[in-house]
Every structure is written in structure tokens, then in C-alpha cells.
């Protein structure tokens, strides 16, 4: 009953920065089963596993427009500002980005530090 509409995984998406590994079911700019949404970059996409709706999708990541690394959309790995940039590339070219992005990157940096400290204290 479900198998025909289920999107078979086409391979594994692996973030080259954090190592997150998740099966993906589509690469491109028009996720299957959705007619009114397009993506502004070539994305690795998975059917949203947390929704029963079959046309809900989840973007996993894409290539950094500068270094071409495959990165996930997680805030520790990349950001989107009209194009995808991995955080290392953003930091390298920080001055090319507007103030808002710069602040955001600094905030993320601080957050991820406390986050990892928390994790370390637990184990």
C-alpha cells in the first residue's frame, strides 16, 4: 500500500564537515510531489520523515558555492545567503557579507562552543 508512493532512498548524503549521514531520495531543485515550491539551489532532499504528508520534503544540504564541499544545512556547517556557503568559507570571506550575517556567524560560533562544552560535561 505504501511502497509505491514511498520515495526510495537513492544514496547516502554525507556532510563533509560534520559527518552527518542520512539517506536522500532526490537531488535537484524541484522536489517530487510538490508543484508550487522550487529550490534556489541544487539540494539533496529527503521526504520529511517527521510528517505523514508525502509531499513534505526535507532539505539535507548542498554544495558550497565557493569550495564545492558537500555540506549540510545545519547552522554549524553552512548558511544560505542567496547561495550556499560553508561556514569556513564564510569566515574566510567575512567582510564580503553584510553585517547581519557576520553577527549571526559570531553568534553561532559562541553557541556551538557552549553546546559542545555541555556535551563534554555529560559524558
Amino acid at each position, binding site marked *: *500500500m*505504501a*511502497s509505491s508512493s*514511498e520515495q526510495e532512498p537513492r544514496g547516502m548524503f554525507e556532510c563533509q564537515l560534520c559527518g*552527518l*549521514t*542520512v*539517506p536522500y531520495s532526490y537531488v535537484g531543485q524541484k522536489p517530487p510531489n*510538490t*508543484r*508550487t*515550491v*522550487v*529550490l*534556489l*539551489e541544487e*539540494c539533496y532532499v*529527503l521526504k*520529511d*520523515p*517527521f*510528517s*505523514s*504528508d508525502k*509531499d*513534505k520534503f*526535507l*532539505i*539535507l544540504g*548542498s554544495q558550497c*558555492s*565557493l569550495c564545492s564541499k558537500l555540506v*549540510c*544545512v*545545519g547552522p554549524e556547517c553552512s*548558511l*544560505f*545567503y*542567496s*547561495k*550556499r556557503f560553508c561556514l569556513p568559507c564564510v569566515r574566510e*570571506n567575512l*567582510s*564580503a*557579507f*553584510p*553585517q*547581519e*550575517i557576520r553577527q549571526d556567524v559570531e553568534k553561532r560560533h559562541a553557541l556551538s562552543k557552549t553546546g559542545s562544552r555541555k556535551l563534554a560535561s555529560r*559524558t
Partner: protein
Amino acid sequence: MASSRRAEGRGRWDWGCPETRSRLEEVFFGNQDIIRRGSEDCRRFWAFFERLQTFQKPKPGPAAKQLAEGPRCPALAGLPATYDPRYRINLALLSGEGEPGLGARGQLPRDQLAEFRRAVLHYLDFGQKQSFGKLAKLQRERAALPVARYRGHLLQALREHQVVVVAGDTGCGKSTQVPQYLLAAGFSHVACTQPRRIACISLAKRVGFESLNQYGSQVGYQIRFESTRSPATGIVFLTEGLLLRQIQREPGLPQYQVLIVDEVHERHLHSDFLLGVLRRLLPARPDLKLVLMSATINISLFSSYFSCAPVVQVPGRLFPISVIYQPIAKEEVPTSRAERLDPRPFLRVLQAIDHKYPPEERGDLLVFLSGMAEIGAVLEAFQPYAAHTKRWVVLPLHSALSIADQDKVFDMPPPGVRKCILSTNIAETSVTIDGVRFVLDSGKVKEMSFDPKAKLQRLQEFWISRASAEQRKGRAGRTGPGVCYRLYAESDYDAFAPYPVPEIQRVALDALVLQMKSMGLGDPRGFPFIEPPPAASLETAIVYLRDQGALDASEHLTPIGTLLSQLPVDVVIGKILILGCMFDLVEPVLTMAAALSVQSPFVRSAQSNLECGTARKPLESDHGDPFTLLNAFNAWVQVKSDRSANSRKWCRRRGLEEHRMYEIANLRQQFKGLLQDHGLLAEARAVPGDSYSRQQRHRQRRELYQLKRQHEEGEGRKRKVLRLEALDGGSSSGEDAEASGSQAGGGAHRMDIQDVKFKLRHDVDQLQAAASSAQDLSRDQLALLKLVLGRGLYPQLAAPDQFNSCRKDSDQFFHTQSKQGAVLHPTCVFANNPDLLQGGQAEAQEKSLDRRDGPSGQHQLLAFVSLLETNKPYLVNCVRLPALQALLLFSRSLDTNGDCSCLVADGWLQLQLEGSEGATQLLSAALRLRARWEEALDHQLARQAQPRGEDGAAAAPKTERKAAAALGRDLLDFMRSKVSYSIHRLTALEAQNLYVGPQTITAAPQLPGLFGEAALTPNETKGGYTVTSFLTYNCLMSDADLYSDCLRTFWSCPHCGLYMPFTPLERMSHESSCPAAPDKDAHGEQEGGGPARGGGCLGLPGQPIRPSCGATSAQLSAHLLSLARGQRGGGGGRQPPGVHSAAGLPL
């Protein structure tokens, strides 16, 4: 509120205006769009939208800031010069494209449309971030589990070996991760067994979620009544019992590539057996992989059982736990079994915790006690303390609690208050409660033990094993460092057994042996169990199955045994089902069999509640517990079929656990299917019904499905906060929980998901029809039902003690053949109405006060479903039966004296009948009925063994049904026969000197051809003659045969007119073969409503006996006759003239 917010002309723009919203939804949230009108998603969007509005309002407008520096590389050249949050969204929306020019209805200004579009994009982006965050968190958590580091090691080992053992303690993640590792590594068709059904469901859910397959079909479960399995399923979680059934059907298990047997250290009967079966299977399936998962207990046992399989050992994630030994002082140890447990040592631990740890430091207490009584005693002592200090909420936890009460242990205590859970060993492995910091271990456990000699299950208290003690301790260290108080000395601990006794060594093995036989595993005595059960238990099981007719003398499965092995129920219950099919009693029998196979729906604590008692009264049946259960279920179904009625409330009023009712409904449906599958029951044809009602039903189902889906989407019981005040003073739970529940759930529209599932699974109208037909059972049907139950339950019979009528209600004693002094369970209807069982005794009392077991026609026996020993041996689920008739029809051994006035059933109950004529008539009638019943059963079983017809329905042929109906009527007549008799339980001495012993006469008397050729054999141990497999004639030490000759009186046959002296035996023999008898085909004639329906089949003295046809019964009576002669000949008695001619009756 919405009405006040109208769009006010062209002036102010109002996003809240319903018309505006509706227009926007029309444009953006159509059927093709990602958000659809009216959906949950749409509702969430508007909530998001409102938040977005308030968040954006104070914004001063885009501040255009030029970038200070020019871009360094060409890829950065195209970056927007002015920052806008919309550049951060990698989605674009096509909906509403081109709409702004929307002519006549174009009330949506361009700016607002653009703003709305941005809002939708933000919402979608927000959704992406949320889902991705969830996904990333999930992956992080999985990677952080201790087992994650052993993934490669495990997969490597499994590639090189057929069997691998994974050993790791609770919390290491093996149960959820190993199946996923296998699937990710390319294995498919993975089955993972669990000892408990509930674990199958929760693991399937968890693993489905973790493997991002929550809404897919890759991960499923399969339990007794439910399956979420499909061809796409890669991992299925199922119970051990179910996998065994699959092996039974397909011994090679071709449907699986990998089997994971989880929790093998728990050593359940099924899991031990499964391991044995798999060990045999593996050589035949070299491609099949087997993973055993265990706690770090006795790992070498499992590894060596599978020729030194490699072990992957995963350390658990446990925080340090300090152990404090506080052995109980001598004066506080209960001296006798009856004495209650002294709660003082437990209370001191509570005080110590309060003393030592400030209330702000959270952490709950888990107390391990041996049983419900102990929990009750400690609860009683803790509650005043908790009420006084306001620092504790005390909750019991054991399997007899209602589901809702069990669930409370997962709720949160209010701040500054600790939860104290008083639990049986259920919390040792089965139930995991978070937040436990303190463990208090009594060191005791109550476990079932099985006494093969008495075939008695006993619930006894034992010291736990060291492994259990460690398991209990570990519960304190799951979320942080913990403390474990042990109410025993370290030296006690050292003296504990290393491991708990495996289940196979302490339970009855009937079902196991039956299953082994049906799987063709040969002699169970030689089966290579991982640790063999006691030989005596196996022997008892084999003898029991032989007694029950499931195995023949050479221990092969009989047809009925084959059938029983396929019914997933107790042997006796299976027998009842099969027997019930014959007499058109299927509906009530299905219900009873199901009700007797689940835990009692009657809530224990409601026992003392007066209101409950009154409300329950109309459900009670004076025939016995199975009938009360039948009434309760049927009444419940009636409530269910009334759409306006609230069945939950109805149950609560009567102290019934509704969950059990659902289980009964499911189980009876499963039984029905099984009986249909085996051709014992014709499949019901779908009632055609008109198209309107069909549509109606269809619509109802659609609504129900929708409700179910809604429930599943909003799933997850939210943890409630426990209320302090509701919990002290014994907690009246029911009403309270309901009231607070509906508050939390938000009012009247709280859906009962159980009800929805029930109505989806069952055709309520059909159930209701069955229930109301059962409510109108006639007296005859009731009596027949009792007979079916009695025959199924035999030899589980108990006789009332002869002095019961002089005792108080609560002091009634009963005796089984092997166990004396059993008592009734307090819920039993006879416990409160003992006079129901004393018909005979009361009558006798009037006649002679000194003999309570004196002559009467009313003596009753109890047939019971189980005998359970706790502090006393209890008879559980009893039916009363008329003693004499039951014994004549069921006894495996019946011994008589010369004139059959004295009978001994199964060597323990002696019946002294008044008047040998009535006695012999009754006996011969019983012989015929038994033969006919056997024959009818054989037909029935032969039919089920045949391949099914094309139409699938294997209805009994008409003649067979007629014969069964006639048999039913004759059985009822037999039950009604009135003979006065006394009943007496033989003393050991009497039993020893019961038989005359082997006689010197060797030649059995042989009558000329007339009565068949069967030769009578003298019984070589008891003396007398073997008449049938169960009847031995004239073997009792008795002086009655002195008078046997005097019993011959002149009699004229009403059919052929023969007139001559007969003994009663001779007379019956003549009648059964008299060629002039009008109803050679008795059943057929009676069917037509003949005049003499039941015309005293076994009549009252003086009435002619109406023999039923069939060579068997005629032969049996002939045997009796010839026996009577033989005895005379051997005994050298005086023979009146003319007797021989009686044998030469005209043909």
C-alpha cells in the same frame, strides 16, 4: 471576536479579517499547494503568521547599508548589496503567481500579497529548520550511544560467523540500534524477537522514528492481534511465541535473513525453547544469521550453546551507585508466612533520604517488594508519612493494577516532592522509569513455582539472585549517580544464587510439549535444551497430555492434539472451544474461552467497594465464574452498541477493567478465525443488507479511520504532574484520574482511542447480536455449556468438604484428587453463596443430621480452570456440575461393584447409588452417550483434517448436525436424571483396599454372535472385567454382589412383548438391541418433534429406556450383560431357569 474584525473598506488593512484570510487561503493554499486549506498545517501557519506580525512590527524599515569592502572573489560578486532576510531562504513559492491582477475579485493589494508570500516562505523555512534540527539531534544521540562504537565490530563478526552474541546492559542502545545497523549494512528481512508484546510496539515505533521511517513501512511489528507488517517491511519486531508459531508453519523460516533474539538472559520459557529450535535449524539454513542479545549475565552459557559464538560486549552507561546494606533486625522479620511484612525498615530509609538530601535535589525512589500484599503493607505505612511531610508521592506498581494506574508512575512529581514507587520485580527489566536516584531493595521476589507431582502452581517468596540484585541496583544509576539501599546483609548477597531460576524449570510444560510434538521435534526428553527442565515436569506434562487425549499411548499427537497445538491457548481452553463447536454453542464458548485466557477483568480493589458490589450483582451467575464473565462481556457489548452510552464509565462503576474487555473481544475474534480455518466452524456469509445501510457503515468506518489518524498524529501521552492531595489517603484513583484527565484533554471532545480501534476491528452489530443471543440462553443451553466446560476442564475437579455446611462462608474447603483443603478465590460466586454447592447436603441434613454427604440427587462438584497456591491453594474460575452425571460422563476410570450401585470414579470419589436398577440404567446410558459423543468428535476432527472444499466453508453435513443435536438433547436428559446417591472421598486406606484384585477365572464368557464378537478380558490388576477403556465391572471390594441375583425380576419388553426375569443389566441390554423397538433411528425421529422427546431416556425407575442406536452403544450394553453373566458363572451363582433364553432373543 472575529466578527468585530471586518475589513474596513480601503482604509486599514486587517490581516485578521476572516474574508481576507479566506481569500488568501484560496490563492495560496489550494489543493496543489504545499499548505492546504483547513489542514493542521494551515492552522499552524496562521499561528506562525501572527507571531511573525508582532515580531516584525517595531522594525524601523530596511536600513540600507552598503558593504564596506568590495567582493574579493567572483563568486561573491553576485551577493545582494542590501541585506534582506528573504535572501536567506533557499525556497521560492510558485503559488499565487500572476494572481495580483485578479480582476473583479482583486481585493488583494500587491504589497500585501508580497508580504504574505514572504510570510509563507518564512514559515516553510522555519519548518525546514525544525525538521532538520530534529534529524540532526536524532543522529547525534544515536552516535553517542555506547553501542555505536561497536557497530563495525559487530558487523564484522556477523559476516564471519553465523551466530553472534551481543552483551550489554540496559541503556547501551542495543535493542534499538543493532536492527538498524543490520539494515544499513545491507541485510534485509530482519526479525527481532521480544519477550513482551508491549516492547514490540514501542521498539517498532522508536526504530521507525530513528531510521526516519516513522511514516514508512520499513519497520513493523507483529503481535497477537496486530500487525503493521507489509512486503516492504525490512525489520519486524515480534514476540518469541509468534516466531515459534511461524517456525511451526514453515520450519525453515524462509522469510528471514537475520534473526535477533533479544533479552535472552531473561530466560523465558519461549526464549529458551526458541534457542533450542534455532540451534537445530541453523545447519539447515547456513545463510541465516542469528544475533543473541543479552544483559551482561551468564554470557558464556549462550556463547557455548552455539559452539563458542563470538561475543561483542558493550559497556553500559551507568553512573556510580553506592550500596548501603541495612539488614532487617531479627525482631522485625515476620516469623510466619501468614504474618504481614513489617514496614518499619522501609520507612527508616524514607526518613534517611529526607534527612540526608535537600528536597531541591531531585531524584525519585524505587522500592522493590515481593508482591502485592507487601506493596499494600508498605503503602499503608508510607502514606501517612507522605501526607505529613508533603515531600513524597507514593505509587504502587504491579501487573494487576489498571493500565491507567500503572501509567501514573511515569508522571512527574511537583517540585520539591519525590516520587516513591512501590514495585514488584516488574520494574527490574520490563518497566523503565526515568529519574530514579534511590533504590530500596527488599531482596525478595515472589515467583511461580510448579509442583509437578500435584500439578500445582505455587506463588512463593524467594531471595533474589545476585544478577537480579545488580539489575535492581542499576536502576538507580541511569540518569546520574545513585544510592541503593539493600535490606539484607552483604553476606546474604554473597549467598544468593548467581542467576534467577529459568522459567522452564518452574512452570508447567504442557503447552511446550504439545508444541514440540507438533513441530516434529521428537521425544522432548531428548531435546537439547540450553538448560533442561526437570525430568519430572516433562513426565507430568506428557501424562497430562495423554490424559487430556492430546497424545496417544505411544506419545504421538492425536487428531485433537494436533488441533490443540495450533490453538494458542491452554489445552483445557482449546478443548472447550472444540467441544463447543459441536453443539451450536460457538458464540458463548468463544467468549468464555477468551475471558478465561486473559487476566480477570474484575478489579481487585473494587472487591471491597459496596457500590461496585451492588452494580456487579446482576452480572453474577450462580453457575460459576465463566458464566459471570460471559454475562459481563455480553452486557458490555450491549453498552458498546449503544452509541450514546459511555462504556468506560459503565466499567468503572462495576469495577471492571475495560482494557480486558477489549482483549476478550480481540481474542474471541482470533479464536473464531482459527476455528474457521480448521473447518470446525462455517464461515459466516456476509449479510447482504441494503445499499443504504452499507453506505452508512462505510461512512462510519471512514470517520473512525479519520479519528484514529488524528489520534496517531497528536500522539504521545503528555506527562502529567502528579497531584499531592489526590494521592494521600488511599487515592480513589478512578474518578479522580478521569476528572483530571478530561481537564487536561480540553473538555468534552476527548476521544476514546480504544473505542475507535474496537469499532474498527469489530462489527459491533454482529457482536451485539451474538451477545444478545447469549443473554437469552435457554436453561438447556446453559446446562449444555456447563457440560462442555466440565468436559474440557476435566480432570480439574474439586469436591466440597463434607462439613462445609457447618462452616462459615469464608471457611469452605474443597479437595481435588491431589490437593486437599483448597479454598475458593474471594471473587468466586460460590465464595459468597456456598449454599449453591450444598443442595445435596442441605437436603441430607433434614433426613439425617449425622451424614452430611448423605443420599441426595443434588451433589455438586466444581470444575476449575486453575489451582494457584499463594498463602493458600486457591481454585480459580469454577463451574459447578452435578456430581454423579459429571463423573459418569468424564471419568477416565470407573469401577463398579456387581450390581453397579457402587461406583468409584478415578480412584478417589465413591458414589453409592440408591437402587441398583437406576444405577445400571444410568451407567449404561452414560456408556452410550460417551460412545456417541466420542464418535461425533471423531467426525468433527476428521472433517477438520480433510482438505477444505472449494467454497471454503466446511460446514458439517446435515446428518452430522442432526446427530449432534440429538446427542445434546440426550445429554441434557441424562443431566436431569434423578437418582439419589451419596458421595464420599476415599481415604488413603480405602483407596488401597479398593479392588478385589486379579481373579483365577481365565476364560471370559462369550455370548453367541448376537452381541458382537468382542471378548471380555478379566482385568489383571483390579479384578473384575474390563468393559471399555474406562469401565471396569465388578472389581470393587463390596458385598453387593451377594444380592445381585435377587435383583432379577420379571419384566415385559414394551416393544417385542418378551416377558421373563431380568437383571437390570440384562434388561437394558435387551432394550438396546430389541429389534422391535420403534426408534432404531432415535435422533432422526426426535428431530421431527416426535412425541417422546427425551421420553425418559435415562429415566426414572420403571420407565422404559430409550436406547439410541449405533452399534457401539449396543455393544457396550451387550458387554454389560455378558459381564453380568460371566460373573455369575465364575461365582457359581444360582441361575434361574430361562435366563439363557434371554440371550437368544428373537432377532
